[in-house]
């Protein structure tokens, strides 16, 4: 692996190539971890030799013993680092993210909660300085909740940062509409998809998962009744696209421009198709892993609970609780939460790696 790294680095100096550069980037962390580990081992061997030397004076010996103890600790840590660096980077981690929020069970309270989550992610992205672009929103009838909200976090790598947010978010609180002071439990679903921009094709970077043949896509535009053309001046700009082989559908009517709705629609459709293909592959992988050992169940339901009366947010996967709910909703606490989730995921993947090797 290290040989490959030096080889590639040499090639990269001769001619720059994005694919090559990506591979080098992946290898760099492994090579670095390996180098540090080997340095530490060498250090330890030297110290052992010193300690075995009977002529060593007492003062030096004490120092060497101290060093030896700390080096042993470092070696443990470094060997873990190697494991971590060996965990393959998610193939879409470098992409922007498309986030879809929908209410689950709980009626209008679920819609209000979906809106709360929307605001939470907006605040979080704002805090991190990530650019956000709203793809479409559909408010509920009372205009205090969401029926559906889709937005894109457009910076590269957003998918890698946010993908663990996908799942069922549960809320336990006394809704504003509740007159008898009873605590309700409702849910909202967050989907996080890697976002494949339509312009990506030109750069030779497009992921095979989002490639679709436009011949397989049926485009429906709201049909003008009657003669159409100069006879009417309709404002319908809604576009619906169906990917015939998978049956997946995307519909956008947010802007007055049919042209823009079309672009957005295709983007959403491509992301959904890629996600489906990836899910299928993951399911396959999961089946293989399950056959090997009882590790890593799929996405569990209710991955996170927001408990208002206890001022607590708990991530059930990471087994982590944050006892400051407002800070989470304002984005600051969410950062900590996401960090914990990443740690959990890393641990799980290392375990997986250990099992498969």
């Amino acid at each position, binding site marked *: 692996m290290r040989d490959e790294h030096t080889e590639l680095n040499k090639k990269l100096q001769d001619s720059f190539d994005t694919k090559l550069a990506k591979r080098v980037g992946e290898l760099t962390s492994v090579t670095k971890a390996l180098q540090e580990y080997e340095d530490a081992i060498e250090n330890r061997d030297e110290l052992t030799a010193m300690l075995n030397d009977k002529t060593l004076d007492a003062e030096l010996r004490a120092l060497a013993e101290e060093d030896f103890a700390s080096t042993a600790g470092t070696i443990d840590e470094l060997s873990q680092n190697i494991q971590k660096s060996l965990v393959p980077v998610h193939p879409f981690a470098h992409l922007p993210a498309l986030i879809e929020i929908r209410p689950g069970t709980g009626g209008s309270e679920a819609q209000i909660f979906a809106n709360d989550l929307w605001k939470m992610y907006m605040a979080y992205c704002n805090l991190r300085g990530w650019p956000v672009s709203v793809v479409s929103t559909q408010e509920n*009838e009372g205009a205090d909740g969401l029926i559906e909200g889709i937005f894109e976090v457009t910076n590269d790598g957003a998918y890698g940062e946010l993908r663990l947010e996908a799942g069922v978010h549960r809320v336990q609180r006394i809704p504003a509409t509740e007159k008898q002071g009873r605590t309700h439990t409702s849910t909202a679903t967050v989907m996080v998809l890697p976002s494949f921009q339509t312009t990506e094709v030109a750069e030779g970077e497009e992921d095979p998962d989002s490639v679709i043949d436009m*011949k397989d896509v049926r*485009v429906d*535009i709201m*049909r*003008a009744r*009657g*003669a*159409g*053309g*100069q*006879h*009417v*001046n*309709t*404002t*319908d*700009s809604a576009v619906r696209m169906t990917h015939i082989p998978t049956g997946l559908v995307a519909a956008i*009517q947010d*802007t*007055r*421009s*049919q*042209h*823009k709705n079309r672009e957005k629609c295709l983007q959403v459709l491509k992301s959904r198709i890629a996600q489906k293909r990836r899910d299928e592959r993951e399911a396959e992988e999961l089946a293989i892993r399950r056959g090997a050992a009882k590790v890593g169940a799929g996405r569990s339901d209710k991955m996170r609970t927001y408990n208002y009366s206890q001022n607590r947010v708990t991530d059930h996967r990471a087994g982590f609780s944050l006892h400051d709910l407002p800070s989470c909703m304002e984005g600051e606490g969410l950062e900590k939460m996401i960090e914990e989730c990443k740690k959990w995921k890393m641990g799980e993947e290392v375990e997986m790696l250990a099992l498969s090797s």
Partner: protein
Amino acid sequence: MPRLPTTLLRRASKLSPHLPTLLKVCRSLDSAQIELKWLKEHAKTPEELQNFVYRRGELNEPLQYILGTQPFGATEILCERGVLIPRAETEEIALHLAGLLKSGMKVVDLCTGTGCIPLLLAAEKQVSTVGVDISPIALSLAMKNLEHNKEVLRGRAQFLMGDVLSDIEETAYSVQACFDEMEEGHESVDVVVSNPPYISADGYNKDTARSVRLWEPKLALEAEHDGDHFYPKIAEIAEALGARAIVAEVGGWEQARRVEGYWRQLGWSGTNVWEDFAKKGRTVVAWNQGGEWVKDGPNAAQ
């Protein structure tokens, strides 16, 4: 027009007091809600919103005149009373034509109105365009649109006054002069495109929407001879300009077949009809040798 069901009106008024008014013109809750959203985004005060809703719902004023714009491909076209609002069908045609054009091509748009077609083409491709219209109101709006969209233009656009019906030689001469100014060694135009008035007198009374009849200029909609008046003239001008292809919007399959007939009679070697997104015969194209690239439309069977 059928009456709106009371249940629908009641549901609408629960959501917003503006919706029942908008329903009168939008006819479905979905489209009333989305129009209300756009009007809200545009209105600065609740009073202004009230005024917009009244104009739209009670007076049938087109949304595009109230908001002042219509998105058209990558351009944003300013809309004013007295000039026809760009249609979705025309947008589809122009976007498809833009895909067929090659850099450096020269395009003439007859009856250009807002100037939406040449501006969209020049936004998509590095082409030179000249738009012609008889109406001074349309021309001054086309000029404003040129200025309004200059950031997105890759090609060039000019507009000039001309009469397609009576002064064929004069119009062709002014167009040629315009291209002469734009580039040295100009010889001939590549394609003539047009969305002329194409509705018959009968069709104007029977088939047009109320909002169209009340608010949009008849000059841009109705034509003599069953709506066919402009098509032979367009072909004559195309010939005078040395164009090898014509692209013109029409009002449906019947008219499309008639226009194909006129153009074949005038000696054009090939003709075809492009279908629109609603499966209507929407565009007639004709070509002479070297203009065959114009044959297939946006929804042609693969």
